[in-house]
């Protein structure tokens, strides 16, 4: 499977990494309307993430980061804000 092929639009969606842009990217990627996602939203409780959506999120982040993620690292991420912080740190670590 080639994640680039699946998730090219996801990479574009989260290329900007301000929190607001990250929220807009998630909205676009997961089919929400504009400004429907807030940073405090919990993925499962507020946004209704199911097992398929979690896999999509991991593959999207992997594609944007350019390397494989340990899914275990995502276990503690409950909110959109958590995911964004994790994503930023991941990109910063990749640049060092």
């Amino acid at each position: 499977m080639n994640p680039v092929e699946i998730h090219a639009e996801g990479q574009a969606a989260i290329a900007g990494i301000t929190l607001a842009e990250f929220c807009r990217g998630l909205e676009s990627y997961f089919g929400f309307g504009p400004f429907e996602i807030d940073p405090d939203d919990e993925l499962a409780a507020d946004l209704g993430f199911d097992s398929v959506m979690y896999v999509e999120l991991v593959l999207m982040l992997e594609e944007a980061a350019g390397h494989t993620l340990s899914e275990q690292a995502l276990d503690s991420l409950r909110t959109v804000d958590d995911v964004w912080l994790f994503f930023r740190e991941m990109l910063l670590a990749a640049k060092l």
Partner: protein
Amino acid sequence: MSSTRCISASGQLFREVATRWPDAIAIASLAGDLSYGDLLRDAHHRAAGSSEASDDWWTLDQAEPMDLAVEVVAGWLSGRDLLFESPLSMSAGETGLASLALALPPDVSGVGPKDRSPLRVFYTSGTTGTPKGVVHTDASLLAGLALTVSVQAELLSLSLEDLQAIRSGQYDSRTWDRLRIGIRLLSGMSLRTISGYTILQRTLLTGETLVIVDTTDHRSINATLDRCHVTSMSIPGIVAQRMLIDRGTGNTVTSLMAAGFGGGPVDPRLAERFEDVFGCEVAVGYGMTELGGPVAMSMPGAPSDLRWTTVGKPLPGVRLRLEEPASISDEGPRALSVSSPAMAIGVVERGAFRRLDAEWFSTGDSGLIDENGALRLHGRTSRVVIRGGRCIDPERLEAYLRTDPAVVSVRVDGVPSRLQGEEDLVAMVVPQNPGAPPTLRDFRASLRNAGLEQIHRLQLVASLPSTADGASSMAPGLHAAQSSVSRPIEKDLGDQDA
């Protein structure tokens, strides 16, 4: 009403296996192993403890897989009818033996000394999306064991007579020795499902090792593969996807020889990547709870394009029937019916028992038989959507969303997801107030509170497109719009019970 109970055929077989190989490992897990001798002792203990129960039924409600496996064996030894309790049985509102017993006619539920085979009831989301209890007998499920074993008939040097003996629960020590080849089979499906039960039978009635896991924890499954030296396993495709992500490029599991994917359509590219990373052969099969487990399976060693894009040939004793085409020039997929020796006797749905045809079962799937005699599935003849290994009835979601005051009319359909082999649920909604329409977030919160499945996309429309007979249909542009951001879904996919 209580009655004199005799040990079931499965109980007799298990007792003979455990007596023959008491020190062999019956059940392995990360928490520890249980030998056949210990399992027989523990199961006897539980069966004895239940013998004073006032009815013939035993509800299997243990949460831990190890406890549940012991309880199944205890149920075999007790001779009682078994109800596999699950979230589906509870959501059906039919949990409780009293309501189940009321639904079953006397000739099925029976009272008094038993000359019938004990019942086993599994709950499933089934082909309609509405939870239902599928009523099997111990005998029908032993016939299912024969079908499972027949996949390896050549490897095991089994004759047709041997398979018939297994089907009737009468196989002898010579057959037993050949059935026991040292496999350690991991069930990635709950033991409450027909898939998990099939694996439990295949191992514990032939002296092999059943490897149990928390089926919701893919990381635990990955760890179990290595530590319990698993040789083969059966898992839903979505779990395989998550195991791949968790393992990364990982290292090959040296003991693992075969993996069967079930619980929904299989992406051939997922199968290929899984084979690369895990160093095993991926097989795809086809079965349903009503059919007592698998009825078709790709054969070990078959070319990969056949193993991944078909569900193999029907197993010995299984017959397939494709509906006649509407015209002689119509060469498209046709509705599939199956006849199997392992078929259930009926289903309990919405509190009523419905007896199934004893010979043919209409699957709700469509397919074709290719030039090699293998079954190629093309989809479903109904609107049911398959996501994450579950069948979802869009009409149930439509009925709920129509009660929303912000909605004039609605239609829900499945469209290909980004993850190949999965489907997203898209709701086309005519809003009451186009100036302030409902949002996807609103619907999700509402559906979650109602305990229903989620929709994944929302499309606001001025009116629902209609067919010639006036019924609403999917918007013509919806598939095209979705596929512009998705890879095309494969046409030839396997489908297994959820």
